[in-house]
């Protein structure tokens, strides 16, 4: 029933087979395991989105509640430790996989014509992924988070001329406060994820449109 009637009906209108063929049934050269790191990163990103959305169910980003709400997630909520644990370790792992993915692209020269834009969107993805790590680190609002962000934002402050301005923008004032926590939260759950999702779209469109480069031969 599903396969005889419903699927062909839907396929005729939606072009499901074509989508499947274009995205998953592409021709690829003979590659190796290093070529799986982009997909691994994509998988981790999806996992971060799912567990991150779950965390916002209980996490409340204000100086008086941030720490306590995380303690609640860790100690009282069923499987809260697991959800937070996946999000915590997934974040670290994702930075590692993006980075090795970039190294593989670099060493294989896969950034060359016609894939320059794939590389450029990739660089932005790397930066925004690091941005996710930086903004997420503050959210527990414990000593480590507070001082790491104090240090991190004052590093931005060391830029010549406009450094102090950048630091104030990041902190939302001259010191770390509830204002900083709120804007980091906003960047962490809205701004960076939306940018990353859009860029992943462009990145993968280019990967599919241009095809994957092959492992360079000795003579290349």
């Amino acid at each position, binding site marked *: 029933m599903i396969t005889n009637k419903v699927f062909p009906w839907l396929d005729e209108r939606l072009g499901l087979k074509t989508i499947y063929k274009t995205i998953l049934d592409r021709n690829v050269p003979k590659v190796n395991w290093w070529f799986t790191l982009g997909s691994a990163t994509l998988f981790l990103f999806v996992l971060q989105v799912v567990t991150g959305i*779950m965390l916002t169910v*209980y996490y409340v980003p204000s100086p008086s509640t941030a720490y306590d709400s995380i303690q*609640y997630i860790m100690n*009282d909520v*069923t499987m*809260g430790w697991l959800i937070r644990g996946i999000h915590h370790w997934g974040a670290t792992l994702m930075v590692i996989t993006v980075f090795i993915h970039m190294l593989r692209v670099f060493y294989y020269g896969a950034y060359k014509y016609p894939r320059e834009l794939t590389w450029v969107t990739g660089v932005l993805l790397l930066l925004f992924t690091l941005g996710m790590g930086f903004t997420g680190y503050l959210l527990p609002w414990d000593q480590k988070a507070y001082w790491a962000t104090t240090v991190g934002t004052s590093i931005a402050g060391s830029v010549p001329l406009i450094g102090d301005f950048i630091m104030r923008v990041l902190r939302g004032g001259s010191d770390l406060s509830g204002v900083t926590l709120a804007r980091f939260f906003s960047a962490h759950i809205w701004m960076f994820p939306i940018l990353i999702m859009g860029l992943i779209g462009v990145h993968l469109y280019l990967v599919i449109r241009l095809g994957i480069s092959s492992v360079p031969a000795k003579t290349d």
Partner: protein
Amino acid sequence: MAEPRGISRRAFTTRAMAFVGTIIGTVVGIPIIGYLVSPAVKASTTETWIPLGALSKYPVGTPTQSNFTLTQVNGWEKTVNSYSVYVLRGSNDSVEVLSNVCTHLGCRVTWHTKADEYICPCHDGRFSPTGKVISGPPPHPLTTYETKLDNGNLFIHVLES
């Protein structure tokens, strides 16, 4: 590589992916359900004995107000609620402790010595010294607490859910 028996490399990969995908989906999906319903399932109940001081300080025969606070924990939030009860001490250590919450719609009743009644300000519900309904809309008598005496000190049993 020769294809071993019926299954092709492609079919094998498809099945392996479906299998691993199901496992990952389950490992993440089931905890998420538990995670989301958690506060509903773990409805915390407070169950304590609250000390109301020496019984001897309460006059015999006159309902006397006594106050205490109880901290309620909702997730990461602690709320301190104040409660009032009426202690009615009888002769030879008998005692009755009544809640001041009106059984009609939950306003707080007060003891009026002249009228010899508890009067609810909301819809003029009236209760006798032992909490029986005298007049007005309240459907039940005032709630009583379980009591115990320890070394002359009065305790009431509080159950909150």
